[in-house]
């Protein structure tokens, strides 16, 4: 066994093993649990960093075995997987730190962190999957491991949200399975491959391939929260803040978006998908989702719900980027996978801080919170400006690249979508910022907790500050090697035969 085989296996195993150990730990083993969590997260970052370094220099990492007659289980690290794996490894560490602080003294921590690690293991598997079959394996594992996190509180509301979540995702999973099985029956086991498989495909296959594409997008669209398959997401807000952060920034919605990228790029191939006329419909759905999500966000009074509708809108940028099928547009979509993750996790961390420290859940209760919690509020402000697309933050890079990409291929209407969406983003974020910084505190905080001189627990404060710095750096240093944008460029150059 050479190292190139073992690396992806190790990367998957770190969180899988951590999860098994965490389940077995007694509820009281607080220190040990925190140590295991952090060590596993750091080890994973190191493994992913090594693979990123190797892949930049042209190495390949792959492990495979035959699982069923004619079906292989493939773990493979390529440039595209590293985009997602890097994001999830980095944000896992920060979310773990945050979760340790957030769940202090609450029951069921063994269970929580066990499933939390399992969820990250699934995400890693999704990133490293080398064919659709393996992808599906981890995609369903993600569904199962997030359910206990969503219903973690055990309240009636949480259970209802959990039931809704599971109905949406399992039905989506069944549709996806049908599509994958059909595709397999039609053309056999297809590995993800640069440029896809269906360039110049037999015209007789075109009809079934089109139906399969629609089925695939439907199955993946549930997790990516494409309208009208998004209904589970706003409800899943009842989950604890670190879970919402994870669901929205890294795990669930990104798994769907990443799957769409894989299918379009490496199963169908961008050119073939365009030639079959599959992308136009997808672009319309994505554009509609962007506007719809932003519009609904305007009307939410609950902070987390507003962020949830914002997620629905933002994730579709990734999908829309793909549909631009020009190098710049694709780059914009890919880089948003990372940018949206960093920005959204910052916002959710901050929302969690307001809820935990001040007991604030509604936007109209936030008046004057900037004075009470300056660190959190600065991070929130940066995240919000990033989402709006203010230069030089990460979100600006995305929108700029995508806009340029759209003009390059003559899809001017996409620019209009971007502009409208940015205006809507401003319309629902700026009032919050105004309340934070410029409004006077009207009433006592609903449930205030004090941490001496600090505005909140350091476990809760540091993660959003770090991600806020990251989202500034991702914007300013966009052209430095190994920045998200440079990596997206590398993917486009290397993988997408344009």
């Amino acid at each position, binding site marked *: 066994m050479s190292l190139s085989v073992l690396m992806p296996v190790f990367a998957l195993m770190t969180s899988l093993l951590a999860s098994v150990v965490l389940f077995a730990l007694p509820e009281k083993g607080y220190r040990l649990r925190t140590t295991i969590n952090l060590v596993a997260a750091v080890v994973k970052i190191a493994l992913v960093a090594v693979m990123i370094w190797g892949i930049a220099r042209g190495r390949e990492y792959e492990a495979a075995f035959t*699982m*069923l007659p004619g079906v292989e289980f493939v773990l493979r690290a390529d440039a595209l997987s590293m985009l997602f794996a890097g994001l999830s490894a980095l944000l896992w560490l920060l979310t773990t730190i945050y979760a340790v602080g957030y769940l202090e003294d609450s*029951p069921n921590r063994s269970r929580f962190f066990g499933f939390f690690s399992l969820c990250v293991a699934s995400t890693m598997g999704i990133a490293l999957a080398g064919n659709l079959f393996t992808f599906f394996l981890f995609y369903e594992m993600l569904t199962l491991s997030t359910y*206990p996190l969503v219903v973690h509180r055990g309240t009636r509301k949480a259970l209802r949200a*959990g039931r809704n979540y599971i109905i949406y995702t399992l039905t989506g999973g069944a549709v996806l*399975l049908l599509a994958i099985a059909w595709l397999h029956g039609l053309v056999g086991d297809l590995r993800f491959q640069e440029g896809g498989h269906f360039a110049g495909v037999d015209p007789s296959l075109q009809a079934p391939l089109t139906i399969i594409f629609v089925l695939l997008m439907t199955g993946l669209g549930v997790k990516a929260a494409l309208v009208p398959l998004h209904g589970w997401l706003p409800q899943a807000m009842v989950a604890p803040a670190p879970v919402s952060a994870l669901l929205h920034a890294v795990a669930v919605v990104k798994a769907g978006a990443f799957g769409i990228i894989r299918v379009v790029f490496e199963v169908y191939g961008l050119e073939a998908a365009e030639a079959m006329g599959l992308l136009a419909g997808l672009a319309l759905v994505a554009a509609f989702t962007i506007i719809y999500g932003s519009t609904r966000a305007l009307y939410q009074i609950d902070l987390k719900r507003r962020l949830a509708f914002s997620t629905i809108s933002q994730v579709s940028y990734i999908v829309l980027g793909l549909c631009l099928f020009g190098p710049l547009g694709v780059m914009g979509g890919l880089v948003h996978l990372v940018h949206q993750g960093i920005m959204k996790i910052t916002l959710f961390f901050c929302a969690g801080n307001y809820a935990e420290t001040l007991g604030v859940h509604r936007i109209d209760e936030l008046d004057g919170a900037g004075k009470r919690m300056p660190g959190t509020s600065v991070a929130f402000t940066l995240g919000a400006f990033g989402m709006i697309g203010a230069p030089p933050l990460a979100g600006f890079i995305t929108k700029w690249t995508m806009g340029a990409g759209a003009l390059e291929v003559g899809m001017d209407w996409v620019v209009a979508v971007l502009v409208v969406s940015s205006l809507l983003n401003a319309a629902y974020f700026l009032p919050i910022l105004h309340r934070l910084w410029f409004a006077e505190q009207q009433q006592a905080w609903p449930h205030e907790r004090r941490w001496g001189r600090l505005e909140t627990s350091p476990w809760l404060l540091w993660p959003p500050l770090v991600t806020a710095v990251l989202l500034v750096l991702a914007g300013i240093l966009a052209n430095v090697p190994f920045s998200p944008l440079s990596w997206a460029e590398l993917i486009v150059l290397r993988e997408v035969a344009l």
Partner: protein
Amino acid sequence: MTLWLMAGLLFTPLAWAVLTLLVDFRMGRAVTWLGILVQVLVSLGLWAAVASDGGFYYLLGGWQAPLGIELRVDGLAVTFVLLTALVAAACGWHASVYLDPGKSWHRYFWPLFWFLWAGLNVVWLGGDLFNLYVGLELISLAAVGLVALGGQAAALRAAIRYLMAALLGSLAYLLGVALIYGQFGTLSLADVTALLSDGTVAAGQTFPLVLMLFGLALKTALFPMHGWLPPAHGIAKSPVSALLSALVVKASFYIAARLWLDLGGHLGGYELAQLIGVLGGLAVIWGSWLAFRQTKLKQVVAYSSVAQIGYLFLLFPLTWGVTDAISLQAQQGITLQVISHALAKAAMFLAAGNLIMSVGSNRVDALAGVSRFLPFSLFSFGLAGVSLMGLPPTGGFAAKWLLLQASLASGQWWWLGVLLAGGLLSAAYVFRVYQASFIDNTDTDHFFHPPKSLEVIPLILALLSLGLGLVAEPVLSVMALPFEGSSR
């Protein structure tokens, strides 16, 4: 070497049945542990022997058929022998802790347990129709006795009902066997097949085959003949329920499948195959729906068996009139479904028994708080549920994948709906149990914590069922070993 293994395999259960009949519960328990060890080792040995050298015919006592008893020891049979050993060992171990030695009638658990095991091995290895009948009867009678062991009036009622169904099924089967004998003059399945394929005997009527399949389907609780199963499996002691759902119903299905694969091509027909498939599909839908509606935990699990058995009958349409490749795919899928359901359902019944013991009630809504205070017991139940839902990477998923492929390749797309809807419906009843256990309405641990050994056993079974999907290819390759047909 294989001679000794065969002798050990066939005679230990019978010898142990007699031995344990003579002693009390505790003594029987000790004796049984030794017997289980022997059986597991012998089964493993036989499986390894066949995996390395291929299958063979074994003539009991060296007598040639038709006088002697001829056993067919092939890859599929030894896989099921090994499966039986694993599941029975787990259930026997569980029962030895779970059953209360204070109740005098519990001592009969051991002899019945061993008779059941003997019958199962006869069925897996049986080469002629009459031996299969003997094995089947042995199983049925032992199983009815085990159900009655529950003790209450309701258990006896369920047992009587089960007995009636089993006897009717046996009768139909026996009648079919007699008609076959009248027509072909032999009881050996291999000889009948040979006579049919070289055209010595004209194909004749479908009726005997239909009669036998009817009897076997009744014993397997195929919809709409499933009425006897949920009361019997629900009321029996948990280790007994596990044995019944995991192994006993599979024995009659196994015979039906072998009859169909050997004779179905000549005596069966498209309509018959589709009819059986439709009944299977209805069983999946109706059984899952009823499982969802149950208020008692073990009834949920029992109705889930009705649903899961339904999948098995998709074998009939998916192997009739299709190419060999598709037929093989379907057979592999069904075999994986048999194995993974056996492991998962045994795990689930044992875990359900533990949960009921812990909360002191058999109702689903009594499970509130279990997830917080008894995560371990719930975990096995949950894992087994994942396999029943057919989600990856479990054996249930591997089975579903192969069946999907077989349905697509044979153009029988209507089974896709059954497979996908069945998965979602089973998710509905499994998640209903999860949901009940996640309700967090108490801060005190008022639950009884069962002994660790009781909790470990279902976990092992559930993990095996989970891992089956990952090692499906090597397992299937042993089953697909060429059968040389030489005698040893």
